[in-house]
């Protein structure tokens, strides 16, 4: 039937529209994928594909709630902001790196190109290695650290120092490509282990996390880092000073990187917090997280601050453990496999975790998953805190909507007016309740308690109005949704009262007509047959369009089953089922 076709068309059109949005909004991802393809290094490609996939997945998830635009925009803004911020923070480090690390194996030109392509990917690994370094505070993987931060900086500071780019590029490039390369670099730096760790982390980071996540992390790190930078910088400086004399300049750079990494790590660990902050400060960052994310973050915002600080301290002192914890939360297991490779793992795991966390936070789904991922991850101090925070807000957020939904559903069932009234009051009442009792309690009981207690006045009003005949109309949400679906164009919400009036009259007429039909059939109850006759009279059902067609077209499955007798296994249609 044409009606059916229309319905189908609507769906297809909707899908196509969404698809268009996807394509329009996902140029960023596609470009990256393309770039990844251009890259010669297999590892890079692999990483990119994973990242791109993750990003795409996140985007899809984000798009579902129709937050695509915000997500994409945010992603873009995040990138830009992160870069800018990053440059600010890493300016010093880059310089140091430039001096110490010109020996990097990777050619600057080649790497630059790659880096540009892999900007996002690098951000993740760069941030991670930096973070890792901070934790270590050790001179380990100087090369890696230097390169990583330099690479990060390079990304931002491309215009500034080509040399800096070279080492960073080398780092970024080398990391994904092969651990060996990094090892070579590390030769410069006496400590080889660290390099491996960094490499692994880098790889893990790149692989596991989406570029967006990385960017966000960077941004977070940037933002939070700005605050913490001061603290960390002081620490870094101290570390640097102490170490400079001890080891090569590379070490110093590492320290700086480490410090920065710590900052970053802290930022990442506190990812949920950071994200919210960004939301407040930066336009793009906050939106990316989406509504659910922000809610979660905001809730834990206060809690996060403290742990963040603690994390900072931890980073300064130990740092590694916390980093690892955070990655644990992240869902991507890529980091975990890498960990075994690098025994130190702490550094690597943490950045990965963090990156993962970022991704998770971005997706908002990952938060619960984050806890699952880390296997080898070490101390969960920081991550645990964050996890708890994340879980708590997450718990709260789902509870809250659940509560609301429950109430709303009840309201919908009732008369529209009463439903509306009850919905209004319970809404903020619910909110009060939710905030008051964060602990996960049986929602219905809580609701009942709250409803009964705090709003006796409202309760009085609700029942009275329920009985009013003027309120007897179908629920607004249902009616409007149906109308919009049928209309296929925008419908002003003002039409609802008019539709209500129409429906009221319609029902009255309907009842009268059906009564007449039943009486004509000498029955006292209105049956389905009466309706069939009605539809025939209305012209909806003719000789060519049986009633069942209409039934299938419009009604949901459960109702259809009731109306249309289904052939049983014995190939017998039992007409009595209809009644």
């Amino acid at each position, binding site marked *: 039937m044409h009606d059916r076709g229309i319905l189908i068309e609507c769906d297809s059109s909707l899908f196509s529209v969404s698809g268009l949005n996807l394509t329009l909004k996902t140029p960023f991802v596609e470009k990256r994928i393309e770039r990844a393809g251009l890259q010669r290094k297999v590892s890079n490609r692999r990483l990119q594909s994973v990242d791109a996939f993750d990003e795409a997945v996140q985007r899809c998830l984000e798009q579902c709630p129709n937050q695509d635009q915000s997500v994409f925009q945010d992603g873009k803004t995040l990138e830009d902001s992160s870069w800018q911020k990053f440059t600010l923070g890493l300016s010093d480090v880059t310089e140091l790196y430039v001096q110490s690390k010109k020996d990097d194996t990777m050619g600057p030109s080649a790497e630059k190109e790659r880096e540009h392509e892999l900007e996002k990917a690098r951000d993740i690994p760069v941030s991670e290695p930096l973070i890792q370094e901070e934790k270590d505070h050790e001179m380990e993987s100087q090369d890696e650290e230097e390169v990583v931060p330099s690479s990060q900086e390079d990304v931002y500071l491309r215009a500034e120092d080509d040399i800096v780019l070279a080492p960073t590029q080398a780092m970024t490039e080398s990391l994904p490509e092969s651990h060996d390369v990094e090892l070579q670099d590390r030769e410069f730096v006496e400590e080889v282990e660290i390099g491996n760790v960094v490499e692994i982390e880098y790889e893990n980071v790149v692989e596991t996390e989406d570029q967006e996540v990385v960017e966000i992390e960077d941004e977070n790190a940037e933002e939070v880092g700005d605050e913490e930078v001061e603290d960390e910088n002081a620490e870094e400086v101290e570390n640097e000073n102490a170490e400079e004399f001890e080891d090569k300049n590379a070490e110093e750079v590492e320290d700086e990187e480490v410090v920065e990494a710590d900052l970053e790590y802290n930022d990442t660990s506190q990812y949920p917090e950071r994200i919210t902050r960004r939301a407040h400060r930066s336009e793009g960052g906050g939106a990316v997280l989406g509504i659910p994310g922000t809610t979660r973050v905001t809730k834990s915002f206060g809690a996060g601050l403290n742990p963040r600080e603690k994390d900072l301290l931890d980073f300064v002192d130990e740092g590694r453990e916390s980093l690892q914890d955070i990655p644990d939360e992240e869902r991507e297991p890529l980091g975990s496999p890498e960990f075994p490779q690098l025994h130190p793992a702490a550094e690597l795991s943490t950045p990965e975790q963090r990156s993962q966390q970022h991704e998770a936070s971005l997706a908002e789904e990952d938060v619960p998953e984050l806890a699952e991922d880390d296997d080898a991850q070490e101390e969960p101090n920081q991550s645990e805190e964050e996890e708890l925070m994340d879980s708590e807000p997450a718990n709260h957020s789902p509870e809250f909507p659940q509560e609301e939904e429950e109430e709303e559903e009840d309201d919908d*069932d009732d008369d529209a007016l009463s439903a509306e009234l009850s919905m209004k009051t319970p809404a903020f009442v619910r909110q009060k309740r939710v905030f008051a009792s964060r602990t996960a309690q049986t929602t219905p009981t809580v609701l009942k308690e709250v409803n009964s207690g705090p709003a006796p006045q409202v309760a009085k009003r609700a029942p009275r109005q329920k009985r009013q005949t003027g309120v007897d109309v*179908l629920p607004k949400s*249902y009616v409007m949704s149906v109308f919009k679906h049928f209309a296929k164009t925008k419908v002003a919400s003002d039409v609802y009262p008019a539709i209500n009036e129409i429906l009221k009259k319609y029902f009255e*007429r309907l009842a009268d007509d059906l009564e007449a039909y039943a009486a004509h059939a000498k029955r006292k109850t209105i049956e389905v047959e009466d309706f069939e006759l009605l*539809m025939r009279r209305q012209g909806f059902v003719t000789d060519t369009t049986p009633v069942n067609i209409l039934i299938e077209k419009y*009604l949901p499955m459960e109702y259809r089953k009731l109306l249309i007798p289904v052939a049983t296994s014995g190939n017998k249609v039992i007409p009595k089922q209809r009644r």
Partner: protein
Amino acid sequence: MSKKAPRAALKLHMKKNTNIRIGKNADLMAQLNLLVVLHRLAEESRVKAFEEKSATIKVHHVRAVAKRSHDGLSQLNMLGITCFTEFRRRLVQHGRL
């Protein structure tokens, strides 16, 4: 996008005016009818909105359509017109009441 309309509300509506009883699945049919009618109403109002070159359906669009269709529906039932074209013809005859 088929949702489940609250059967209780539908039943309430039908029983409001009359004290006659409703069959078992009759309210489902009532929902079906409601959907069909709403569909028709929405389409007509969409057409009307197009006439005014507005992308969104406004209240006056719907009202204008309802005025016509409601009387038409009742007329249709009362006159026992099964054919849709005839229904329209009747409406014209009665001056688009």
